[in-house]
């Protein structure tokens, strides 16, 4: 596969390490009432869609960026690639 890196353009997926669902960005609040439960769901419950999937890839033999790649798991079509840091900020992870 080729991943269209937001900074570097098309890069071979072989240069990346795959992690999984981009929802791993949404780490729960440790001080919340139901923190145990929320962390459990965060860590163990994942959708497994046959179709569009947002997932985390690490450009390990590249620029060490974590990316959020929107990929169709059936066709491998990649429709969007974002820097995970930007996604994290957009999802309210700024301190």
């Amino acid at each position, binding site marked *: 596969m080729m991943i269209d890196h937001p*900074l*570097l*353009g098309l890069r*071979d997926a*072989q*240069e990346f390490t795959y992690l999984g669902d981009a929802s791993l960005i949404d780490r729960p609040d440790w001080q919340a009432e139901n923190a145990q439960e929320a962390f459990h769901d965060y860590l163990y419950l994942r959708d497994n869609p046959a179709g569009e999937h947002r997932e985390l890839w690490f450009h*390990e*033999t*590249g*620029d*060490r*960026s974590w990316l959020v790649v929107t990929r169709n798991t059936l066709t491998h079509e990649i429709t969007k690639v974002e*820097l995970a*840091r930007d996604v994290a900020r957009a999802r309210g992870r700024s301190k």
Partner: protein
Amino acid sequence: MHKLKPTTALGADKPQIDQFDGLEIAERPDFALASLAARQGAEAQCAELAKAHLGFDLPAAGQGHLADPHSGFWMGADQWMISAPQASHEDLAAALKTAVGDAGSVSEQTDGWCRFDLSGPGLKAVVERLCNADLTSMALGDARRVRLEHLGCFIWCLDPGQAVAILGPRSSAASLHHALVGAALSAL
């Protein structure tokens, strides 16, 4: 002056040079390296201070700059590798840190890497046996991080189509050298 004698990445006193029909592979221990990363919120300041010290703009993604004494290339978001001759700049990291102050984080990288310069008309034929860098698309100073013989390396364009520097993890210098020589024998 301290009394410790350095060894090359290949463990010798002198750098290794290999000649092939159309290519020279030369080990280059004579460069000091330091990484520079801009502090959050201080990116502009870091760029300005670095430019004042280095004499060039910090390169954009995928690009680099070659000059004397300082050269450098983009390594990652807000992160660069800076290079200068070891003989005159063994203190490269310290000097760079002094220049950028709290606007940047600097780490000595001189011995994190071994460097082999490949030059000659056979370059393209050899590089295409080594990694997926597309030499045709690389302008002067451009650098790519590539996977080469299972090693994360930088390939840095010193002369488009004619010469590149390959920086690899120093501890694997012998494996990297073996791969370079094997590719040269195979392709040339």
